[in-house]
């Protein structure tokens, strides 16, 4: 099976294939609409001033109670209507979906993956049949992450050299991989297919090549692949190969 994500068309947001990506898109569209309205209103008033008041005597005023009230009122309106709305929405989205690692991990059939970023590729590790990381049946892949459709995926990220950033444009998420710490990201795919994984943080000359492929499989296809790969991994396991033993005990963040 060769990885061949399809190109995107047009200048819009990439095709959304995640369960929660629409939340980001909706906020983006809301903000876009709001700033368009603000921009048009202010620009219209300016253009009106340019055309209408171009010449002729200027009004002598440092601002009246009414005009200052207009400023304050407009600012308050935007603050509550736009900023406030964004804040409340985002608070909910982060807590319930994007940073809700606890319930993602607890979900039925959740897939846990460890990813080790380094210049310039992404190594992924699956726990294998025993459900534990750092054992001989761990499935290890390079620049090739496979996940099943319809279940939450939780990735713990590490980096051995410099900061990278795991970026899944089609799932609207990203997370930095920082040397010395383990960070987390969770997402859930909705549509099977092949999508791109990008590095979003400048990480050296070949940053532009730090590309990987995310393959979203049907649940049983994923199960079969993982079982086969686990078999292969067990056979290929080399206790001497220290390089390949970068896995860590799955980190529990929540008590």
């Amino acid at each position: 099976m060769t990885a061949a994500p399809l190109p995107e068309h047009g200048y819009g947001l990439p095709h959304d294939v995640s369960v929660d990506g629409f939340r980001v898109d909706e906020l983006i569209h809301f903000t876009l609409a709001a700033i368009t309205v603000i921009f048009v209103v202010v620009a219209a008033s300016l253009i009106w001033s340019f055309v209408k008041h171009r010449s002729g005597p200027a009004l002598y005023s440092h601002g009246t109670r009414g005009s200052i009230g207009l400023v304050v009122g407009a600012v308050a309106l935007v603050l509550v209507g736009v900023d406030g709305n964004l804040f409340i929405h985002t608070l909910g989205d982060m807590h319930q979906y994007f940073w809700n690692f606890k319930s993602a991990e607890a979900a039925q059939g959740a897939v846990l993956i460890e990813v080790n970023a380094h210049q310039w590729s992404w190594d992924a590790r699956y726990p294998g049949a025993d459900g534990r990381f750092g054992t001989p049946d761990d499935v290890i892949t390079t620049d090739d992450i496979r996940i099943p459709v319809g279940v939450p995926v939780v990735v713990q990220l590490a980096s051995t050299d410099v900061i990278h950033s795991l970026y899944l444009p089609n799932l609207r998420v990203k997370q930095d991989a920082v040397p010395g710490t383990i960070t987390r990201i969770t997402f859930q795919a909705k549509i099977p297919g092949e999508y791109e994984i990008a590095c979003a943080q400048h990480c050296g000359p070949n940053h532009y090549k730090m590309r990987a492929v995310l393959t979203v499989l049907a649940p049983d296809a994923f199960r079969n692949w993982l079982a086969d790969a686990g078999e292969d991994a067990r056979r290929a396991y080399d206790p001497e190969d220290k390089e390949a033993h970068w896995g860590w005990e799955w980190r529990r963040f929540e008590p």
Partner: protein
Amino acid sequence: MSTAAQALAEAAQPIHPPPTSFWRQYVFSIDHKVIAKQFLWAGLLFLLVGGTLAMLIRWQWAYPYRPVPVIGQLFLRENGGVIGPATYQQIFTTHGLIMIFFAVTPVLIGCFGNFLIPLMIGARDMAFPKLNMYSFWTFLLSQLLVLASFFTDLGSAGAGWTTYPPLSTNVGTPGPGQTLVVAAIFVTGVSSTMGAINYVTTVIRMRAPGMGYMRLPLTMWGLWLTAILNALFVPVLGSAALLLLLDRNFGTQFFVAGASAVRGGGDPILFQHLFWIFGHPEVYILILPAWGILGDVIPFFARKPHHWYKGTVWAMVIVTVLSAMVYGHHMFMTGMSPLLGEGFMLFTLLISAPSMVVVLNWALTLWRASIRFDTPMLFALATVFVFGVGGLTGLFLADISMDLYLHDTMFVVGHFHFTMAAASFIGAMTGVYFWFPKIFGRKLDERLGKAHFWFTFVGITLVFAGQLLAGYAGQQRRLFDPFQYTFIQGLRGLNRWTSFFAFALFAGQFIFVWNFFKTLFGKAVPAGENPWQVTTLEWTATGSPPPFHNFDRIPEVVRGPHEFSNPEVRRLTGRDFAGQSEVLPGSAGPALAAARG
């Protein structure tokens, strides 16, 4: 006839004889006006360097792997004129650093700060003229360090302008180039701090009699608040640079982690904290002077008092205070604690309120005005436009869940170019066109100025809008070859067209260069004392260019900075403006005018 207050000010700042030797007059000068020109030259020169580097980036995105015409033959000969990935990372790193620290900062703060502060507040010079001179020469040293870095073994710095470790330690960018550039950041920080101390002290101590804080021209407010931010936060950047230098050269482990760490190593995120505690205020360090300039130029050319002057002043003060509390929005994706992230998000959203007050006050100043569309005014209005776009697109990035997608994409690049590059640059150009007659005694050509304006305004808008669009479609920043990714394939045309606009924008700047030299060395037409017919002290209380001691007599200020279209003034003088220190005929002298504010 002078008042008692003027006599005191005269006694505190006596007139010194101007220096006579060439060196003291033009090179090691302590005259703030000469130092301002030195900063202007140094800044404009590096603007050209930074702009050229930008063209290289754009070339790479329009025609990846193809030899660069002209510049490639000059500087990339060993590579056949083609930009390679290692060269490319040095290009965008130094482009960012040069533009921010070594081009826009010296023009906006070094030049205008130095030139305008004493003249606009009615002082004979800065509080510490010698410190002022040291500030410039330290700055020049930092520029030389940057230039030197290009000629080192592995080339210049390549870790991005943000210089994140571990990439910026020996782990990611060995070689003396990166070290020299980090040292240059430290040295330029020392220069900025010296300048800031001078500016802050000068505004506190040297205001002419009658020049209360609420009578300061808004340019002064902008520059003063910027100086305060510089004094507070540039040292934090200095500490980050210092620790990074120690990590690079003495093997310490502040920021090194991962495989090359000793005993657990340090914390790469620590650097980001230090960097952005400085870095976010830096955005305002660059925009506040531009806001200030607009706050004066717009009423000047609208022939109308600034709308709600105090509101704008307080908005700028609030922005200054808040700017230190929002920096975390640059680090939403580093795995910071959710609570901290949400706090930073809240403050970031709140900072839009004072910004809106500033913009709406401009709009209301223009309402029912009598607008003169001279070149400085055109640039000022364009600044309002690009700052509006920049500010509004900031809303997306203030918000964590949209940042999940947009962080580290070209959208961020477009956003901060609209604010930091477009608004600061066009704002600086507003200042250059407006104060050129005062600095050099001659007025820039209006026709060429307008041509330059249209190239710049349309060019900048199209280029940075192209960046926003690319980022909206998901393109990451800092890619040597974006088209390695299939999901960006469809953006080839967009990137290429953005590049074409960028080339046009760059070419258009030579209209300015031509205008600049033509005016400076061509036939001289003296600009006159007050060619724009405005009110502030530098225009109404001294000549163009001002003498060495600025004011023959230190003025006594009797009114605010934007007294336009006052019917009373028109009745008395027949003019539509009254200078800040002007005593109107028939009025009972300064005391009465002062009493009326």
